[in-house]
């Protein structure tokens, strides 16, 4: 029985705000990737130029024969619902989607009769790997809760690729996650955007070309964690803390930008905290902001205006529906649950129709998990939110609801040119479902990540286990 005292402890410290990061595309992994694949988004030059690639991705596509899934209902997340459709992918790329697709002779043909296909599921908010199972202190690596601003820490340096929660998420159709620091801190550090594949190191999972995120957190958590430890202890203290950090980062950025231009004298001294924040100011690192209440989101938008950066996505945002018009205007996405509410005071006003109302106002909705259990059912959560919206008279289409866990999270991570829809040229992140994925009864039958069959419900040879799970009951 998981009573809330336990669950809550996790929520409080684990549940964080996502922050994605501009990942430096590296000479090695990145270039290889780009050749095989569609063009990657412009990689950020990390920090001031002159500092070379840092902790580069060594991700490599796993070889897999071409695959043709035929006669399925295909939800492309790009506006199409194709009955009796086929999808062909090869060398990690989607080759063709439609009703008349021929299989090359070397293709594996999968009968999709009665089954459904969507893009791979993307979670903008996960703590898998940084708060790994089995949940001991030894693996509690998600919050550097030693001071309120830790922009210098990177989630990838905590990430444990042998977390047994990873295969569970894969079995739920998840192909990409943003692993985030927790929400104890005002600024919790950089996120890691990862391909969810079996790997020995986090570098092998790093999504080439992805943008780092910067995790920021509003409200209750920072003031609770630091209230008795030197502050902040109030929401106004929270705001002063962000502002102070970004004022320092502005000065740092000016110094480095000048030096990068004229190379006069010695290079300025590096400061990891300011490097991350300066990259936010340059637009290379995306702000992923844990923030529940509408009034606090409005404060954070003002903060972003003050320092000239964009908030890519609010996370949790249970009150997004109260300011749906503003969020649409600002172009800030919301990464939300379908129905979580009430477990803490700032979550009191969560309603089922949050997603639908933001969608209706023209905003960008993402269904996120913040939870190792929920990440396995993001399709179900989207279904819940869609149907509740419809019952409230808000006409959400199935395509829109599928975008909530595919195309829209891809945008939040800056990966929308690479993944998130089933279109030729996109990376072959593909899920075959037993039924309509927005139904409670649907299960992922096959999961392809970059064309690689990483999970097959009916074939134990394709049901990865992490090292931790070997020899366990």
């Amino acid at each position, binding site marked *: 029985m998981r009573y809330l005292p336990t669950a809550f402890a996790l929520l409080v410290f684990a549940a964080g705000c996502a922050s994605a990061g501009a990942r430096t595309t590296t000479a090695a992994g990145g270039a290889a990737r780009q050749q095989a694949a569609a063009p990657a988004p412009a990689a950020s030059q990390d920090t001031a130029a002159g500092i070379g690639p840092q902790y580069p991705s060594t991700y490599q596509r796993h070889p897999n024969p071409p695959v043709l899934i035929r006669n399925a209902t295909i939800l492309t997340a790009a506006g199409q619902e194709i009955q009796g459709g086929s999808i062909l992918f090869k060398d990690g790329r989607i080759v063709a989607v439609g009703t008349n697709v021929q299989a090359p002779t070397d293709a594996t043909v999968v009968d999709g009769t009665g089954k459904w296909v969507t893009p791979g599921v993307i979670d903008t908010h996960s703590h898998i790997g940084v708060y790994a199972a089995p949940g001991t202190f030894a693996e509690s690596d998600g919050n550097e809760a030693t001071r309120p601003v830790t922009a210098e820490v990177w989630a990838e340096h905590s990430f444990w690729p042998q977390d047994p929660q990873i295969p569970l998420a894969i079995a739920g159709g998840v192909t990409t996650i943003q692993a985030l620091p927790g929400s104890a801190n005002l600024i919790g550090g950089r996120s890691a955007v990862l391909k969810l594949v079996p790997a020995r190191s986090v570098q092998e999972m790093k999504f080439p070309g992805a943008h780092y995120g910067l995790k920021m957190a509003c409200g209750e958590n920072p003031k609770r964690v630091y209230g008795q430890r030197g502050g902040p202890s109030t929401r106004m203290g929270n705001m002063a803390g962000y502002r102070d950090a970004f004022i320092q980062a502005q000065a740092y950025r000016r110094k480095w930008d000048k030096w990068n231009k004229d190379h006069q004298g010695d290079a300025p001294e590096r400061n990891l905290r300011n490097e991350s924040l300066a990259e936010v100011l340059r637009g290379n690192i995306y702000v992923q902001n844990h923030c529940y209440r509408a009034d606090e989101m409005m404060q954070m938008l003002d903060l972003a205006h003050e320092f000239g950066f964009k908030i890519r996505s609010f996370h949790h945002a249970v009150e997004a529906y109260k300011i749906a018009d503003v969020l649409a205007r600002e172009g800030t996405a919301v990464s939300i649950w379908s129905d979580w509410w009430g477990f803490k005071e700032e979550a009191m006003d969560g309603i089922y129709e949050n997603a639908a*109302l933001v969608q209706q106002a023209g905003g960008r909705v993402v269904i996120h998990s913040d939870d190792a259990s929920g990440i396995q059912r993001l399709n179900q959560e989207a279904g819940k939110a869609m149907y509740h919206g419809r019952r409230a008279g808000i006409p959400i289409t199935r395509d829109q609801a599928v975008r909530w866990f595919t195309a829209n999270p891809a945008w939040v991570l800056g990966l929308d040119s690479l993944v998130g829809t089933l279109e030729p040229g996109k990376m072959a992140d593909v899920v075959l479902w037993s039924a309509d994925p927005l139904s409670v009864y649907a299960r992922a039958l096959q999961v392809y990540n970059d064309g690689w069959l990483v999970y097959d419900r009916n074939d134990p040879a394709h049901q990865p286990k992490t090292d931790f799970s070997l020899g366990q009951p």
Partner: protein
Amino acid sequence: MIAFLLAQTIAITGGTVYPVSGPKIANATVLIRDGRIAAVGANVAVPAGATRIDASGKWVTPGLIDGAGQMGLREISAVQNTNEATLRGNEVSASFNVLEGINPASTLIAVNRMEGITTTLAVPNGSLIWGQAVLIDLDGTTIEAMRVKSPAAMVADLSEGSKDAGGGSRAGVAQRLRRVLNDAREYATRRADYRRRQIQDLSASAADLEALQPVLRGELPLLVVANRRSDIETALRIAKEYKLKLILAGAAEGWMIPDEIAAAGVPVLVEPMDNIPSFDALGIRYENAPLLAKGGVKVALMETATENTRDLRQQAGNAVASGMTWEQALRAVTLTPAEVFGVADRYGSLDVGKVANVVVWTGDPFDFGTGVEHVFIRGRDIPLRSRQTELLERYKTLPPKY
């Protein structure tokens, strides 16, 4: 007013009725009178003057019963002063009955009952012996009005969570539980000596030892939280030694030993979507509920997140997706929990004479596409309103309507 309501007769007509106690009945009527079910069937005459509810094309089931949670015992789990479920400072709290901690005005009640959950177990929290859980209907302005059964179970913990009460060892926990039960037995035969202090020190207070008597007599079930296979076996062993009526809760590794559990005649409360491994249950898996059911174990389902008790429906749907039959899953959220908590004479199915907890759905209760049309609790047609519907109303068009 109350008398008028009680005298009301309601006829739910034309729906597909799932009585749970028997096969579904197409185009059937459920007749409710004075808060009880007066008739169920395809050929029920609707009395003149009855309020008719047209359920054509709809599904009609008993109200759903959640086998866990803390409804009314906490408003916001993170706000300590809204929490009433834990008696601090006592590792053995057998005399702690949560009933008077329940707040009938809790906003969580309306949010969850309008999704078809009509009855829940309100469970204390604690260390070794948590106290007495009570079964409540999610309607009523007083605890007397809400109470279905109090106590419904004595709750104890043999999982990792209670290790401190055993000095840091599972073996210590089991030994301590036996000591408490032994002392309760001794206390029962020597109450006078106890009062005169002519007895060695016992391991719990008189009130706690007294509260354990119905458990020792096999009248009040002992609901034991246990997840690891060896902990489940410890619970079965102790229950056998003391001839207790046992209910297992959690039972994450129960799928490994369905025969053992079934042979002991012990029912199990399972949360089907719970599959994150911990050292308390490394063998936890999605298929637990279906495998237990297949093995002949009586399975009831639970959703332990109190504020989202409504997700019991999703738990059931996922149990089906993992291999339970749909009929087993419906029973696991209606008649089976009623049996487990000893109220199947009044709850859990649509049968004449039972309390009229009835839900009219637009379709399959487990499907996300299904809406709730009516919820009857003790025959009252519950308004489908909550704090959340009011928020929706206020903000559905912006700027909001203040």
